[in-house]
């Protein structure tokens, strides 16, 4: 897929209008995953907007966002950065052999108290 097509796909499936962003940085300031991220929520917004998406596609940051929606709730412009990060993640895992977690990885990650909710959620976020 061409770079521009990928940018359009990400914007379309996220439903986000990145141009509404006024760069206040509140999304990143409130993000509980900030310390673990190479690229932060506000960077996702302007990098997708400017078409600089390759670094995002290859960064582990897409797995550090847990979609807690703190940025979505607190954005004064209703940009909804978490939806954009989700779309970038989908652009990666929807490709052949790009699942972030394999079924075979699972048995050794389980313990007897782990709720099913954790497993189904992880598979939705990590695999297609």
């Amino acid at each position, binding site marked *: 897929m061409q770079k521009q097509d990928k940018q359009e796909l990400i914007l379309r499936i996220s439903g986000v209008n990145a141009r509404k962003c006024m760069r206040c940085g509140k999304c990143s300031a409130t993000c509980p995953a900030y310390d673990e991220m190479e690229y932060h929520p506000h960077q996702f917004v302007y990098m997708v907007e400017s078409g600089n998406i390759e670094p995002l596609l290859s960064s582990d940051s897409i797995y550090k966002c*847990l979609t807690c929606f703190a940025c979505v709730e607190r954005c004064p412009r209703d940009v909804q950065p978490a939806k954009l990060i989700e779309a970038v993640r989908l652009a990666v895992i929807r490709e052949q052999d790009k699942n972030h977690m394999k079924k075979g990885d699972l048995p050794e990650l389980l313990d007897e108290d782990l709720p099913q909710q954790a497993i189904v959620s992880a598979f939705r976020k990590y695999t297609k």
Partner: protein
Amino acid sequence: MILSYYPGCTLKTKAKDLDRYGRKSAEALGITLEEIPDWQCCGGVYPIAKDEIATKLSSVRALAAAKAAGQDLVTLCSACHNVLKQVNNDMKTDEEIAGKANRYLGLSEEYHGETNVIHYLEMLRDKVGFDKIKELVKNPFTGKKIGAYYGCLLLRPGKVLKMDNPENPKIMEDFIRAIGGTPVIYPMRNECCGGYVTLEDKALANKRSGKVLENAKDMGADMLITACPLCLYNLNKNTDGYDVPVYYFTELLAEALGVKD
């Protein structure tokens, strides 16, 4: 009063207490929770992307079943509540998603978000009333300092879930008062516990949950309550040295009402 009930996958397995005490308490409050027949797992997280249709269908089936029964749909797990309300909103407001889902499912009657989805806490507040619960309490939690842990799934996105003010909620604090306890307000009560990241990064889950527990402890909480099996797991497994027990809110409700066995 009879309401449709969607328990979800975890309440049938690792979170049986959340379900069991919820049902017992509802009976004691004069509400019959009628489990939807043949419900399917909601998937745990709402499929955000506009072109995700198949992953929303299990929720649509449950919503349509409640519509057919002519009842409000009650959820108890925070995750199911979040997913069902957001999918319901899509079916009501997004013609493309609703059109595709309806064409695929071929229901006898098209579904367009008619069902009213409420969380169990909303049922307590709006159908029963916290004042009524207060009257029915047999074993009040007098003197207990209880912190409400909302996490991320109960409140956000506020515009869709419409449960409470997402930044300054009070529904769980009002619940704590109703069962005779003293609510402890602490800033981290609506921040993320680390969720499913516990599968691949225990250290990160530990850090997140540790911050919640540290904050709750600092503000004087003796215990926390939650509606989410994954929050309970993360907070119990990743104490990071902070000793604050975490319970399902339905367990405290059942104890207060005198129906806990």
